[in-house]
């Protein structure tokens, strides 16, 4: 699977990353603030590049998600983009987006339900790290632990396995992440399975 050059640049070059986030995050009334006529063409070209990166991450993230999580959650109910955005306020305007996290990760995730459980299957391109999984599963805000995946819990309730796939070269093989994803689904399945009542 080919990594878009724009995504690799975003992950590895803090200057590009901050410039892109600056352009994507500008309020309409800030966009041309204090700019001279001679700077406008330069600004519009840069804005186009920022949007290019955002779009190329979206296309890559969808392909990578399919390669990692595709088929593993067929027995769960998939939420549509509309349902997901209505459910999860953090998703924001775009499903595959530049995140607001301090580390500047690019992320993409999908929500699934089974019984009363909600499973969040996502991935993130983390600067200075690589492509990583992020998972969460809970029922009525009671979270399932994914510590067995050698994962740490962040402050918004997502578990991040330690394994990271480097985004150094032009191509990646996502199969190691798929194996972790499969383990995560097994943990979620076990938690969501109906409990048999013990007869005395």
């Amino acid at each position: 699977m080919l990594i878009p050059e724009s995504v690799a640049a975003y992950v590895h070059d803090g200057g590009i990353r901050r410039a892109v986030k600056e352009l994507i995050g500008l309020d309409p009334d800030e966009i041309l603030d204090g700019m001279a006529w001679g700077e406008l063409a330069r600004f519009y070209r840069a804005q186009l590049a920022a949007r290019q990166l955002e779009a190329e991450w979206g296309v890559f993230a969808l392909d990578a998600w399919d390669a990692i999580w595709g088929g593993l959650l067929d027995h769960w109910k998939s939420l549509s983009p509309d349902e997901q955005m209505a459910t999860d306020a953090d998703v924001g305007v775009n499903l595959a987006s530049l995140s607001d996290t301090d580390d500047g990760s690019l992320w993409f995730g999908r929500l699934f339900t089974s019984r009363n459980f909600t499973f969040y299957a996502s991935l993130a391109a983390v600067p200075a790290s690589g492509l990583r999984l992020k998972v969460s599963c809970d029922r009525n805000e009671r979270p399932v632990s994914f510590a067995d995946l050698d994962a740490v819990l962040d402050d918004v309730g997502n578990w991040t396995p330690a394994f990271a796939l480097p985004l150094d070269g032009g191509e990646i093989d996502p199969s190691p992440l798929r194996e972790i994803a499969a383990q995560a689904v097994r943990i979620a399945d076990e938690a969501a399975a109906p409990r048999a009542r013990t007869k005395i």
Partner: protein
Amino acid sequence: MLGLLIRAGRGHGHEGDGADRSDDAPQEQDAVVTGSPFDVEALGWFARRFDPSLALENAWPLPIWETGREALADAFGLATGSHFLRHHRGLLPQLWERQITQALRAMILEAPDRTIERSQALMSALAGPRAPRLGRVDLVTADHADRMDLAVHYRTVDDQRGCLVVEAKLESELSDTQLGKYLTGLKRSYPRREHRHLWVVAPRRTARTMTVLRRRENVEWSFATWRRLLLNWQRALPDDPGSDVLSLFGEIWKRTGGN
């Protein structure tokens, strides 16, 4: 193709409506068959259009990222080897106005051989092509309370005395009278307007700031955002201004709303 359609339409009309054929009908058809200027232009128009079926087949050529990278580097001055946007940040506690202006003063005065260079870069960052060429820096102050936040007093290469003043804002707003009071004091030392370069620098334009700046007594004051100042200042500095400068700029960038 348009010519053929027109001709087919006419032919159909003649055959289908049973109307009498007038004497000039053969002449109209002849004009189409021999090719009128309209038909040639119409065919050319279609020939020049991009084939829309490529879009339907998802076969648009991908934009070249290198062009985008160059555009970003150009807009943010990233071509230089060391840029504050690439510099590690987060070591300092949250800065306040006075800490920022005092740190900037210390940066300007850090080394005597760099004071003019850094002052000139600040002047160029704010005043652009109208910036005077500095020959000597006499005094740099960073005060607080009811005094000017940051002031650089200089002599140009033509030995003209002048000053550059930055009124630094973060969350607080300008008071009604402070800019006018500063100007009154400055006029005593620098009577000529072209020797005074007065700027209000804030994270963004607020309605309050612009209302104050539009008043007649404040017409000499200009406005710049912190982020624009920092990008322009770095652009005007030498390629490697040192890690302390990069770190300070990075902290101010973040403190004033930058990513």
